[in-house]
C-alpha cells in the first residue's frame, strides 16, 4: 500500500467520524440548552467550543455555536470542514477507494450548506450529517477489500471515535451543573442500550462506565482503543520490528489498562484530566503512525541521484 494513499485513507476515516461526532455533540448541546440548564447560554457555548479546541474571545451565542461547529467550512472544527477535508483526501485516493464510496463523499460535499443555516434547521442539518457518516460507514464496510487500506481507514476512525467520545464524556462533567448523562448517552445513540444493559438503573457512574470502559458499546472509548490496537497490530505485520509502532501499541495498552482498572469514581472525580489523557494518547499514536507508515520524502534522494 502506497504510504501517501494509506495516509489519505487514515484521514478520511478520521474526518468522516469527526463529522459524525461533531454533529452529535452539537445536537446534544443545543438540546440541553433548550431544555434548560443551570448554565447560561454563553457559558454552555463557551464550554463546548473549548472542548473542541476553538478559541472564542467574545460571548458566543447558539448561532455562533452552530456556525463554528456546523456549517462554516472556514472553521476547522466544523462539520462542513470535516467533510471538505475528507473529500480532499478522497480525491487523492480516488483510484483505490470504491467508486460508490467516493460518490458518497463527493455527493455529501456537494450538498453541504453554501450559506448560513438557521437555528430552526440545526437539527435536520445534524441529522443529515449523521446519516451521511452512517452511509459512508455502511458503504465502506460493504465494498472495501479488507487490505491494509481498510485497516488504515479503520485505524483513523477508531482513534477519532475514542478521542471524540472522550470529549463527549468530558462535556458531561459535573462542573456543568445538573447531570447531563442522559443527553450525552442519547447523543451517542446509546441511551436505550445503556438502560437495557444497566436494567434501567440511572446513575452517573453507570453512564460513565458505559461510555468509557464498556467495550461492547461501539461508541465507547474502550471500543475505539481496542479497535485501534487491532488495526495497528495488523498493519505492523508488514513492518516487523518497527520500534515506534511498538511504542504506540504500548501507549494504547497502558491507556486501556488505566481506564479499565481505575475505580470509576476516581475517573469521575478527575474527569477532565482523564479524558484529556485519552486525547493525548490518540494524538501521540497518530504521530507515531504518521512517522512510521506515512514517511515523507527522503531528503537524501537528491544527493544520491543528483550526479551521474
Amino acid at each position, binding site marked *: 500500500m*502506497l504510504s501517501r494513499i494509506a495516509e489519505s485513507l487514515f484521514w478520511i476515516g478520521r474526518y468522516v467520524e469527526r463529522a459524525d461526532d461533531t454533529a452529535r455533540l452539537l445536537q446534544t448541546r443545543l438540546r440541553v440548552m433548550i431544555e434548560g440548564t443551570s448554565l447560561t447560554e454563553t457559558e454552555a457555548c463557551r464550554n463546548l467550543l473549548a472542548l473542541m479546541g476553538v478559541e472564542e474571545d467574545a460571548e458566543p451565542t447558539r448561532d455562533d455555536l452552530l456556525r463554528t461547529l456546523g456549517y462554516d467550512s472556514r472553521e476547522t472544527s466544523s462539520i462542513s470542514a470535516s467533510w471538505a477535508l475528507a473529500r480532499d483526501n478522497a480525491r487523492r485516493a480516488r483510484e483505490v477507494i470504491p467508486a460508490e464510496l467516493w460518490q458518497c463523499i463527493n455527493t455529501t460535499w456537494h450538498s453541504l450548506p453554501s450559506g448560513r443555516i438557521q437555528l430552526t434547521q440545526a437539527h435536520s442539518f445534524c441529522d443529515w450529517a449523521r446519516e451521511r457518516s452512517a452511509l459512508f460507514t455502511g458503504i465502506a464496510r460493504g465494498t472495501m477489500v479488507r487490505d491494509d487500506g481498510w485497516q488504515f481507514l479503520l485505524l483513523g476512525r477508531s482513534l477519532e471515535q475514542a478521542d471524540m467520545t472522550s470529549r463527549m464524556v468530558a462535556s458531561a462533567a459535573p462542573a456543568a451543573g445538573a447531570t447531563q448523562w442522559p443527553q450525552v448517552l442519547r447523543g451517542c445513540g446509546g441511551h436505550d442500550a445503556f438502560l437495557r444493559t444497566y436494567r434501567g438503573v440511572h446513575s452517573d457512574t453507570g453512564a460513565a462506565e458505559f461510555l468509557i470502559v464498556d467495550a461492547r458499546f461501539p461508541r465507547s472509548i474502550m471500543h475505539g482503543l481496542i479497535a485501534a490496537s487491532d488495526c495497528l497490530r495488523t498493519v505492523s505485520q508488514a513492518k516487523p520490528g518497527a520500534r515506534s509502532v511498538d511504542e504506540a501499541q504500548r501507549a494504547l495498552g497502558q491507556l486501556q489498562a488505566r481506564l479499565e482498572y481505575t475505580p470509576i469514581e476516581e475517573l469521575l472525580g478527575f474527569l477532565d484530566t482523564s479524558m484529556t489523557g485519552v486525547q493525548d494518547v490518540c494524538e501521540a499514536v497518530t504521530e507515531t503512525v504518521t512517522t512510521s507508515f506515512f514517511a515523507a520524502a527522503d531528503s537524501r534522494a537528491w544527493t544520491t541521484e543528483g550526479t551521474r
Partner: protein
Amino acid sequence: MPRGHHAVGNVTPMKDVLANYRPGTAFDEMIDESGEVRPSYQAVYGSLQRATPGELKVIAEFLANNYTQAGVTFDVGGVERPFPLDLIPRVIAAPEWDTVEAGVAQRVRVLEAFLADVYADARVISDGVIPRQLVTSSTHYHRAVWGIVPPNGVRIHVAGVDLIRTPEGDVRVLEDNVRVPSGVSYVMTNRNAMITAMPAAFSNQRIRSVAGYPQRLLNALRTSAPYGIDDPNVVVLTPGVYNSAYFEHTLLARTMGVELVEGRDLECRRGKVLMRTTAGLQRVDVIYRRIDDDFIDPVHFRSDSMLGVPGLVNAVRTGGVTLANAIGNGVADDKLVYTYVPDLIRYYLHEEPILRNVDTWRLEEDAAREEVLDRLPELVVKPVDGSGGKGIVIGPRASAEQLDGLRRRLIADPRGWIAQPLVQLSTVPTFLDEKLAPRHVDLRPFAVHSGEEVWVLPGGLTRVALPEGELVVNSSQGGGSKDTWVLSPPVHHPGGWVNESEAEQTSAAEPDGSAGTSEPTPQPRRPSPVPLVVGRPPGLAPDLVRGTPESQQEQQQQAGRWC
C-alpha cells in the same frame, strides 16, 4: 441501404426538437447538403423525432448531475468543473471507421519509426527527407535520451491523433499527440453515462464497445517492461490532484488496477525506481507517466520541478525502468515535423498516407512566409510546440494589434510557428437551450501500441465547441464532449438483420437490447436453484410446541372461563 430511404418527416410528424435544425455551411454529420438524413444517423434521428424538448431536457439534466455526483471533472485554474456531455452522439459508420482506424495506426507506426531513427543514427536526415536543423531545433528533441532503445522498441505507447472533417467531407489529421495525450477517460465515462441515460438508443443498433481500453493499455505497459521482469509492477505517475486531467489519471489507475503515484512517492536508487509503501520500499518497473518531459526529472530537465523524480532519466538509460510514453517524443508531434509526416510515411513505410494533413505553411520558407504575412487576418497560426489550444491565433477573430504583434513574432521566430487555413469543422446537432443547434466538433481517436500491433479504440473523444460558430473545441476553452458511436457492420444471421423501422418501433418498448440483435442460442440446462430460505413468521413458537400461540391463548381464555 438506399439513400433517402427515410426522408425527413416521413415517419412521424416532426416534433419541435428537430423543427428548426438548420446546418450551416460546414459539413453536418447528420443532415447532408440536400437536407436528408445520412444513413449512419437514421436511428438517432428516429429517436429524436419521437422526443420532446422536455424529455431531452430531463436526459441532459441527468447527464449533468451524474457527472457532478461522480466527480467527472477537469480542472481549470485549480477549480473543478464538470465536463459537459452533450446527449446527441457523434456517429461514425463502419466503413468510414475502417479508414480512420487504418490511418491512425499508420501515423503511429510512422512516428514510431521516425523517433527510433532520430534518437539513433538519423538516416532520415542523411537521406535528405527532413532538414537536420528542423529536428535538432525542436524544443522537444532531448539529447538526454539519445541512444536509449526501449525494451520492446515502443516509444509511443499511447497516441491521440486529432482529426477534423472539412466542408468537402474528407477527414484530415490536424495534429498528432504522442507525448501525454489526454481525454480517453471521458470516452469511457461518456459511454457509461449515455447507456444509463438512454438505454433504448443503444438497442437500435450495434455500437462498438469502448470498455477494452484499460486492458489494452495495461497489456502494452506490461509488455514494455525492462528485460527479465516477468511480472512487472506498473504504476501511473500523476502531477497531482490539481492537474486538469487528474480525474483521468485516477480512472486509468483504477481500471487497470495499478497504483497511482506522485513524484514524491518515488525515489531512484542505483538506476532502480522504488515507491514508498507502508511496508517499505517497493520496486517499480513500468511508469505510465502523465507528467511532461520538462518536469519529469529535475536532474536533467527543469531543476525547479517539484513533480518529478530525480534520477529517472538515468534509471531509464540503465534499463531499470520503462517510461511510457518515452521521453523526447515531442519531436514527433512538433507541428513543423507534422508537415513532413506524409513524406515520412512514404520514406519509412513505403505506403501512401491514408489520412491527409490539413494544408500547412512552413514559415521558414520565404515564399510561404510572404503569403502568410499577407493573408494573416484569414489564417490560423499555431505555435509548433503547443498543445491544448494554447497560443493559437485565429486570424478572423484577432484584433489589429494582436495581428501586428503576431506578425513581429513570426518574423523573429519563423521556426516557432505554422499557419493553416481556417477550416470550418464539421457540425453535429447539440442540445442547447432546449433545442438542437449545429456545433463544430473534432475527433481524437486513441491508439495503443503494444509492440506487436497498434490498436485503435473504436471511436475516441469527440469534442464540441459550445458557443455558436466557435471553432476551438479544447475543454480548457469551454468545450464539451459527445459520446462517439462507431457502428458495427451489420451481422447477417439466419434471423436476418432487423430493418431499422422495426427496430425503432420495438426499441421504445424493449430497452433491454434484445430486439433482433442477438442470435437465439440454445440455453444450456441449468441445475434448479436452491429456493431462498426465509425466516419463520414472527411470533411462532418453536416446532416442539404443538398448536399455535393463538390457539393456546384461546385455550387459556377458555380455561379461565371454565374455572
